[in-house]
């Protein structure tokens, strides 16, 4: 690890050795500041656990779409790590691929891609995610936006055809209607969306990206991450609640031939992968309780708004990126520290 410029930790606490007479050779002890205990958590452990949690959904995607899906995931993870390494070398910083955050970024971007995505789109996507999304801001912890989502948003805008799931997956025949549910809803209304039963959607019988169709697997992974404390349940659950309530209101109060019910929105598109893997990304989400709830709920609201009355088929990338921008402001809502003296009060 390189130390920060001008930062010499030894200057801070000058424990100078005492001159003591009758010196005998003695052990060299480590001097450090308290606390001398640590709970043992590590960034790499956290990221490995995120990968483990993503496995069910990813394996399901691979079992459905075969080798191309595996190729997408492998290329996304590999290229993301290569970009990170190149950036580390270019900037003369210590190698940070060991913390597995680049691998997670790649994995998540891969999960959002259709199995048929060409290799150059994937490589470009991970380039955007790592370089533009993260490294130019200073690397891990400094990204204001969610890197995989930033890349996804740019790709969706730039290469519409690649993300037209109906077109991309038309050669697949896996035993269910190979039509992208959100696309059907957008262009043909709830009558077309009604072809998909909630159970089928939940079990992944729908067209979509490699790692975002298997509702059961994503929820299992999400619960795993929540109980192990690797993601913040407040954000995930409030997002799902936001999607559910907004969709329900549209469905009840609005035109029910045009606006699908809440369960349809929960189990289609990127909703679940966003709730458990994208939205709770540490650096781009708030840390205080109320802001976390607002952040999740507003992202859910925006998602359904964009899906129902916006121009895009799925609102997830844009709603979350918008909320990422609001994150610093939201996180100002915080409890008063105990003992704080409030002036002008």
């Amino acid at each position, binding site marked *: *690890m*390189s*130390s*920060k410029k001008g930062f010499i930790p030894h200057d*801070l*606490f*000058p*424990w*100078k*050795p*005492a*001159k*003591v*007479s009758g*010196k005998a050779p*003695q*052990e*060299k*002890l*480590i*001097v*450090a*500041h*308290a*606390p*001398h*205990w*640590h*709970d*043992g*958590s*590590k*960034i790499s452990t*956290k990221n490995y656990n995120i990968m483990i949690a993503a496995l069910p959904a990813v394996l399901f995607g691979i079992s459905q779409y075969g080798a191309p899906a595996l190729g997408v995931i492998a290329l996304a993870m590999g290229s993301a790590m290569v970009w990170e390494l190149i950036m580390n070398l270019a900037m003369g910083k210590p190698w940070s691929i060991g*913390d597995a955050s680049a691998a997670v970024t790649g994995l998540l971007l891969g999960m959002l891609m259709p199995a048929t995505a060409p290799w150059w789109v994937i490589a470009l996507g991970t380039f955007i995610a790592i370089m533009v999304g993260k490294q130019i801001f*200073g*690397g*891990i*912890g400094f990204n204001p936006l969610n890197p995989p989502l930033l890349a996804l948003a740019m790709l969706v805008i730039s290469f519409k055809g690649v993300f037209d799931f109906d077109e991309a997956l038309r050669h697949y025949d896996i035993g269910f209607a190979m039509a992208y549910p959100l696309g059907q809803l957008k262009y043909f209304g709830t009558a077309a969306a009604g072809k998909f039963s909630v159970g089928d959607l939940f079990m992944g019988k729908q067209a979509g990206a490699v790692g975002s169709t298997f509702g059961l697997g994503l929820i299992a992974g999400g619960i795993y991450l*929540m*109980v*192990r*404390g*690797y993601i*913040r*349940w407040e954000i995930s659950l409030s997002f799902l609640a936001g999607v559910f309530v907004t969709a329900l209101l549209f469905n009840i109060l609005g035109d029910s031939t045009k606006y699908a019910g809440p369960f349809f929105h929960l189990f289609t598109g990127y909703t679940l992968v966003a709730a458990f893997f994208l939205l709770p990304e*540490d650096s781009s*989400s*708030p*840390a*205080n309780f109320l802001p976390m709830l607002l952040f999740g709920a507003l992202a859910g609201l925006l998602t359904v708004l964009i899906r129902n009355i916006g121009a895009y088929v799925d609102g997830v990338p844009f709603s979350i990126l918008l909320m990422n921008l609001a994150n610093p402001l939201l*996180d100002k809502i*915080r*409890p*008063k*520290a*105990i*003992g*704080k*003296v409030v002036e002008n009060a």
Partner: protein
Amino acid sequence: MIKRSFWGLAKPRLNYSVTVGAVEELPVPSKVILLLKEPQNGGRGNGLKVGDSVKTGQRLSASPEGAEYVISSVTGTISDIAPYVGMLGQKCKAITIDASGQDDWDDSFSKEPTLDAALKFFEYAPGNPSFKAFADPEKSIGTIVINGMDQDLLLTANQYVVQNEAADIKGGVDALKKMTGVDRIVITVPENLVQQASNTGADVRSVNATYPSSLPHMIMKDVLGQVVLAGDTVEDAGVAFMCAEAMAALGTAFQTGRPRVTKIVTVVGKDGKTTNVRTRIGTPLKDVLQACNVSPNDRDRIIMGGPMTGAAAHSEELGVEPGTDGIVVQDEANSAQVTDYPCINCGECVRICPVKIPVNMLVRFLEGRFYEDARALYDLDCCIECGLCSYVCISRIPIFQYIKLGKYELSLIEIAEAANE
């Protein structure tokens, strides 16, 4: 070391050790090392010389009227006086006294319990009591809290005193009432010591056994229902804290006419084996560890105090200080290592902070050395220094160290400003 629970959703619970073992009496060491603080305004006397003979209980000071002093814990001759720089640059003199093996008591201490006597003899008593607040006309102390719970994890020195020396504490309470005129004296103890503590004559309150509920600020909030304002000390809020051992020392001194020169220390070995020993203040750590069969290796840590707030010593030749409640020896493999990784904003510190400081933002300002902003915007002064933020930090940032550094730098700025006025 207590690790993160598998179910990370649950907050980590660090419990104080409340099972008190017996105390093993250590023999008088062959030498003691006492740290005499140098007065801050630079006035240095030369009252002490190598070769001076000193008696047990004798007050040693650089000049006769000097406010800083140590109490010799053995009878013998001064064999060395060396400069020593302590935590945060505190300049001290390390006085080594070779013990003659026999105790010849100094008799300048009188049994009359006055504040003067306390200021003159008990600032160096075991448990490090401070009586300066009582003499300070700007502070009005209305309550004294005797902390019968140890402040850090693993340690049981003060709990031992409450369990076994309640009569001495009672003597201390009476003397304290007489010398300060403060009537409201509260003793805080863990649940299992309430019975014993009721014999001390102080108002007994129990504290929760979960860290950090025994830190003074937390006791103020939870037990006294009084919040200490940011940047204030507990004394500013009208409360003085003393630990149980200091009270017992006060009690024995006014009963027997001899100040206590021993300290109870909880020694925790690398295998987690805990021993309580009573030893002379100033006993080299090496002697204490040897007596407990603990042998540190290269790159181990010897922590004076507990694992959350203690200071790692650089040498086994340092002496037991009056405030050293414990000596914890930690294997390198079990020690917390810090990194210079950036904060990833996971929010663990925000959720564990007992005083609700937005640590995620605070640490960004501290890392960038924006200390004044850290104080004004992100509640640096509210910190009660429990160390839990560093304990849970996934990036392993030395947050606690940054906080201490920030406070120190701000204090330097204040001193400079005061000097310019």
